[in-house]
């Protein structure tokens, strides 16, 4: 009984069968992935900014390079398993890979990895340069303030300037106009956050005490998600926001309504930028000169 279970031929056949099954599953999933376009992020999520396609193409390039070589390597692996399967009367042998002919199986793929790394690097640096190093001329600036656990957006009012009385401050809703170049100033009031707009393919960390600049140009109108992509405490999952990309006509109407709010006393006055990263007491105190800081000496020592 034991001798038949340990028969190398039987084991070899079993391994071979599983190998064929594995190869079939592998080829089928690769085919599904490619045929259904799952490699293309744009099939799932609109490309909503001028640079969204650059990011997607970079991811696709890496996906194709890695995918093709994975496929090739797996095919070689399955072929080797088949080619050197157990055979009656042939003893297994230990191959150390010292022969030049055998070493090539390792060294050639190694050179290929290096070569393709350079290709990826060249494309990645180009995209990095286009998005992070250079920027088109700014047409409008928006200030983004992250805190536990909300996003506040400060829009230029009709005067086209921040830190003036007609600034429009909103919580949870960012309003931008399609095809306009926006520069953003990202602040955090407390801890690390990350401003993530999937349709823009934009993700930028916010760091307390620092103002981080970036840019985007929306290309598709509609309402999209904004999320925090850096664990920032208990309520991290409860701080979503909405991005509204407006047509020029919608923008004009929106600005007109906000001006009406302002004259009706319904608008929220601007926060001076110096106070944005500050403790809330400073903000309240600024609105209210007689204001008293909350955490007085007595609280801590109690």
């Amino acid at each position: 009984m034991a001798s038949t279970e340990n028969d190398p031929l039987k084991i070899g056949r079993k391994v071979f069968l599983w190998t064929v099954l594995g190869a079939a599953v592998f080829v089928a999933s690769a085919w599904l992935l490619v045929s259904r376009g799952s490699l293309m992020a744009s099939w799932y999520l609109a490309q909503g900014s001028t640079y969204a396609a650059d990011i997607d193409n970079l991811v696709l390039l890496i996906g194709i390079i890695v995918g093709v070589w994975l496929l090739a390597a797996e095919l070689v692996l399955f072929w080797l398993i088949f080619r050197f399967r157990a055979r009656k009367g042939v003893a297994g042998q230990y191959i150390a890979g010292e022969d030049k002919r055998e070493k090539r199986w390792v060294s050639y793929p190694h050179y290929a990895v290096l070569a393709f790394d350079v290709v990826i690097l060249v494309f990645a640096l180009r995209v990095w340069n286009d998005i992070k190093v250079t920027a088109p001329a700014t047409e409008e600036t928006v200030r983004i303030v992250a805190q536990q656990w909300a996003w506040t957006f400060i829009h230029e009012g009709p005067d086209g300037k921040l830190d003036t009385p007609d600034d429009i401050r909103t919580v949870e809703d960012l309003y931008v106009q399609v095809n306009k170049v926006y520069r953003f100033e990202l602040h955090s009031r407390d801890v690390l956050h990350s401003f993530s707009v999937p349709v823009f393919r934009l993700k930028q960390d916010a760091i307390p005490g620092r103002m981080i600049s970036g840019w985007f140009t929306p290309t598709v109108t509609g309402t999209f998600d904004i999320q925090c992509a850096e664990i920032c405490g208990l309520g991290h999952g409860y701080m979503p926001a909405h991005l509204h990309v407006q047509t020029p006509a919608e923008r004009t109407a929106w600005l007109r309504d906000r001006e009406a709010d302002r004259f009706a006393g319904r608008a929220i006055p601007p926060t001076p930028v110096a106070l944005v990263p500050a403790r809330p007491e400073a903000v309240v105190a600024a609105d209210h000169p007689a204001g008293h800081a909350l955490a007085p000496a007595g609280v801590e020592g109690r």
Partner: protein
Amino acid sequence: MTVRLFGAGVVAGLMLVGMSTTACGGGAASPITGRDLYRSCESCHGISGEGDTKVEAPQIAGLPAWYVSSQLERFQQGLRGKHPDDVEGLRMRAMASQMMSKAEIEAVASYIAGLTPRPKAAPALKGDPAAGASFYAVCGACHGPKGEGIQQMNAPPLAGFEDWYVARQLRKFQTGVRGRITEDPVGLQMSGMAMTVPPESVDNVAAYVHGLSK
């Protein structure tokens, strides 16, 4: 061998089916209690609702259920805690969104109402209660002369409230950080009333409220 493999496959399949059914129908089988829901609150407000000044969370133990539910609803609807300068309110707004229905709000509110408040803490501010007494007369019209609260006026009990919390909320009402939403008549009413306290007397009124007992 084949039988064993087949068995493993069946078990795996059953587990998958089991997971999908619990994911769909698990909620109906065991209703969530106020105690369960309160877990979302306790990291800031404390296990027994005692509050935590380090995260600006006031004591909530023993607050009337009607007041807790009305505030949770306000946070959810953006009537409270949606002002860009309401740093603590914005935090609470996110946390309040975890209550998924009116029933859940009521369950957690009645749990909080049943918690026992801790003995009154020492005042955190240096307000003078005697100087605040005269301004409290206006507050007492709705909140009751002893700060006992009057539900018909939508006025919560204030007696024994932490002075730092009272002072901060008064300032928020005064500066428009709280209570200035057109759709919130109660908040607007309180904003108007808050204006009767001169800014330099806010701490004194808070000290007076802190000293009240029902």
